[in-house]
């Protein structure tokens, strides 16, 4: 039997768990662990430049691969720096295991140097957390952490490790459990058949159906089933911001994103529908607008792994709790069975009319049927940057984004045909997410194009990671949509505060991003003319092994449209441009 210290157990457990990368930053409380990593661990460690970036990088890795991201930070400031990234992962249900150092057991509670109550601080933003109290329990706790983080509705799990328990001199038997069971934790393994039957009948009786699919379809690996069902029935599909790619963006049945900045045809289809099939989506306020006015004529089928997500903000008529992939598989089989008996279902005339109506909406105001932005200004339009990106990368890149107007333009104009390609902080809306997330993605998929779409506000929140990219040669491409403002803030100030730009301007204080990239051993390309854009971008993406910072100067006054009218608006109440609303 092998005897290992606590630090060695952690190094070994991460190997045994099949972890590919540890994103971390050392400090006093984790030095024993770092020494064990140095001596024996086969898992590469990526030294970030700020613990927030470690969590976002692990998060980006997790979103792109489906496997839990792993973070290692020290106690106190290391742990608190990780909080924003943990909350980001929590809001989007991303599997992550965060190992945080803690002061020595006998010092806990004494306000010792670099002591913070990590379990207390992180409690509302984790799926679960563990305080290790004995070295012997480390392997099992790590196993449990990975299991909880990645099963059911995924989420971040914190394991707090007092320094004395990782001390190299105290060795114990090491046994990494193959499996763990928790009597108090049993995620649903399949949906209720009776409910799935009800859903099948309701779908077949629909005259104006719409499928509303969210991040749960991506996380639950149910894209193939979603496509199969939608295509079996010829139903229109809309994806949430988190669900982009769950249904192929370039398919005819795809209506674009829905919600606050959703497509006209998607929001209208929702509003006028008679049956909504919601899959792995959570009816959040950025989707529904005013809930009392939400889709007045619709019966709602809601499939989700998390019972608490069902009927939280909008009541579901047919709730189904279960893994989205297996529920959809069952649903498809039932629909086929029912159609074999009654091939005329669903009502094809009604469906034909519905599609005609949807195509009309599309023709009038759809973002992909004609340019809906003003092309007469001298500026590059941010929308054009994303359209060009989509073209240059063949719609196949991994695109991470930060938060702001650039994020919404990326969501609207990049056609994602595959899940896990669109990587953004939807729930928490964390500026600073984009670059570290892109690092995590690129490390997982070194041969793929990885683009970080950002703004000059957001990129500065984790710009220091350019140094990490230099150390580990992570050749992501950064597209800075330079509009000279905290653009999304400015847009709201334009629309709701008579253009009073309270603290959304930088007053000539922005750095020269090209020089900045160069200072970090990378290169940069500045683009100010539309005529240069495509060529420049092609060249940038041809430089496979380099990180290139593209600083693209875009129209400083562009707004994101459509935009829900609020407060008190319904799904279909939208601003279509600066002067026109529905």
């Amino acid at each position: 039997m092998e005897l290992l210290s606590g630090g060695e157990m952690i190094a070994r457990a991460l190997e045994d768990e099949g972890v590919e990368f540890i994103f971390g930053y050392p400090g006093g409380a984790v030095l024993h662990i770092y020494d064990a990593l140095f001596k024996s661990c086969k898992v590469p460690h990526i030294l970030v430049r700020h613990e927030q970036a470690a969590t976002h990088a692990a998060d980006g890795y997790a979103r792109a691969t489906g496997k839990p991201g792993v973070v290692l930070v020290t106690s106190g400031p290391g742990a608190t720096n990780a909080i924003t990234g943990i909350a980001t992962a929590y809001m989007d249900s991303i599997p992550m295991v965060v190992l945080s150092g803690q002061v020595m057991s006998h010092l806990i509670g004494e306000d010792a140097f670099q002591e913070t109550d990590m379990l207390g601080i992180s409690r509302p933003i984790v799926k679960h957390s563990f305080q290790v109290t004995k070295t012997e329990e480390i392997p099992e706790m790590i196993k449990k952490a990975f299991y909880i983080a990645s099963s059911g509705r995924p989420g971040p799990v914190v394991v707090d490790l007092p320094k004395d328990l990782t001390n190299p001199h105290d060795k114990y038997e090491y046994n990494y459990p193959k499996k763990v069971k928790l009597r108090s934790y049993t995620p649903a393994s399949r949906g209720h058949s009776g409910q799935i039957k009800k859903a099948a009948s309701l779908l077949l009786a629909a005259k104006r159906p719409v499928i509303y699919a969210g991040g749960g379809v991506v996380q639950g690996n149910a894209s193939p089933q979603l496509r199969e069902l939608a295509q079996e029935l010829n139903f229109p599909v809309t994806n949430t911001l988190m669900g982009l790619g769950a249904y192929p963006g370039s398919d005819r049945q795809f209506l674009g994103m829905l919600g606050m900045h959703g497509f006209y045809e998607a929001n209208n289809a929702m509003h006028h529908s008679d049956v909504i099939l919601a899959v792995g989506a959570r009816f959040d306020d950025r989707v529904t607008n005013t809930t009392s006015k939400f889709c007045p004529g619709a019966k709602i089928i809601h499939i989700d792994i998390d019972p608490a997500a069902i009927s939280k903000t909008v009541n579901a008529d047919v709730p189904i709790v279960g893994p989205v992939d297996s529920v959809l598989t069952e649903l498809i089989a039932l629909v086929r069975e029912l159609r074999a008996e009654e091939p005329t279902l669903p009502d094809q005339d009604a469906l034909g009319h519905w599609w005609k109506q949807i195509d009309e909406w599309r023709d009038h105001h759809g973002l992909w049927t004609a340019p809906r932005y003003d092309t007469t200004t001298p500026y590059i339009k941010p929308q054009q940057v994303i359209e060009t990106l989509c073209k240059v990368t063949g719609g196949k890149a991994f695109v991470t984004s930060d938060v702001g107007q650039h994020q919404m333009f990326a969501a609207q104009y990049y056609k994602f045909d595959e899940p896990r390609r669109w990587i953004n902080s939807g729930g928490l809306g964390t500026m600073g997410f984009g670059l570290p997330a892109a690092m995590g993605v690129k490390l997982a998929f070194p041969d793929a194009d990885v683009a970080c779409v950002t703004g000059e506000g957001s990129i500065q929140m984790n710009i220091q990671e350019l140094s990490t990219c230099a150390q580990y040669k992570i050749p992501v491409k950064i597209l800075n949509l330079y509009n000279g403002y905290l653009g999304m803030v400015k847009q709201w100030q334009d629309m709701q505060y008579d253009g009073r730009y309270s603290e959304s301007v930088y007053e000539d204080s922005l750095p020269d991003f090209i020089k900045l990239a160069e200072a970090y051993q990378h290169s940069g390309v500045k683009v100010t003319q539309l005529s240069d854009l495509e060529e420049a971008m092609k060249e940038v993406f041809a430089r496979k092994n380099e990180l290139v910072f593209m600083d693209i100067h875009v129209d400083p006054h562009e707004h994101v449209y459509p935009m829900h009218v609020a407060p008190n608006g319904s799904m279909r109440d939208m601003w279509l441009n600066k002067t026109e609303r529905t």
Partner: protein
Amino acid sequence: MRRIISVLMENEPGALSRVVGLFSQRGYNIETLNVAPTEDPTMSRLTLTTVGDDHKIEQITKHLNRLVDVVKLVDLSEGAHIERELMLVKVRATGAQRAEIKRCTDIFRGQIVDVGPSVYTIQVTGAADKLDSFLEAVGEAAIMEVVRSGVSGIARGEKVLSL
């Protein structure tokens, strides 16, 4: 509507703070709360009372169930159940009042558990509204101190909340 929610959970450090944190985080209110280990020392039984409409109670029970430490829970108010709370009351008892308070205690089937020259300490058990009525009967003027355990409860009949 007032509900009694009874929770069987892991007797782990942090479990109670997760339950209490959930209530403050999501804006639910807790009226009473009590918790103690069960006959199986690895598990605790927590009982809380809260007020809310059906939608809110459903959300509360779903979110409680989502906590990894929670093994099982039941909304006792949904079926026949027994509700008990224990209360200790210290009252000023002098002169003619002593007999009056003694009589009142008997009516409520309480017990005087400590006696001093001018105070009684009374123990009363029962449903929460019975304890309220007792306090009303004794009268605010006489009451020096009140300690209540918070509501405990159990389902009637064969139904049990266990592993």
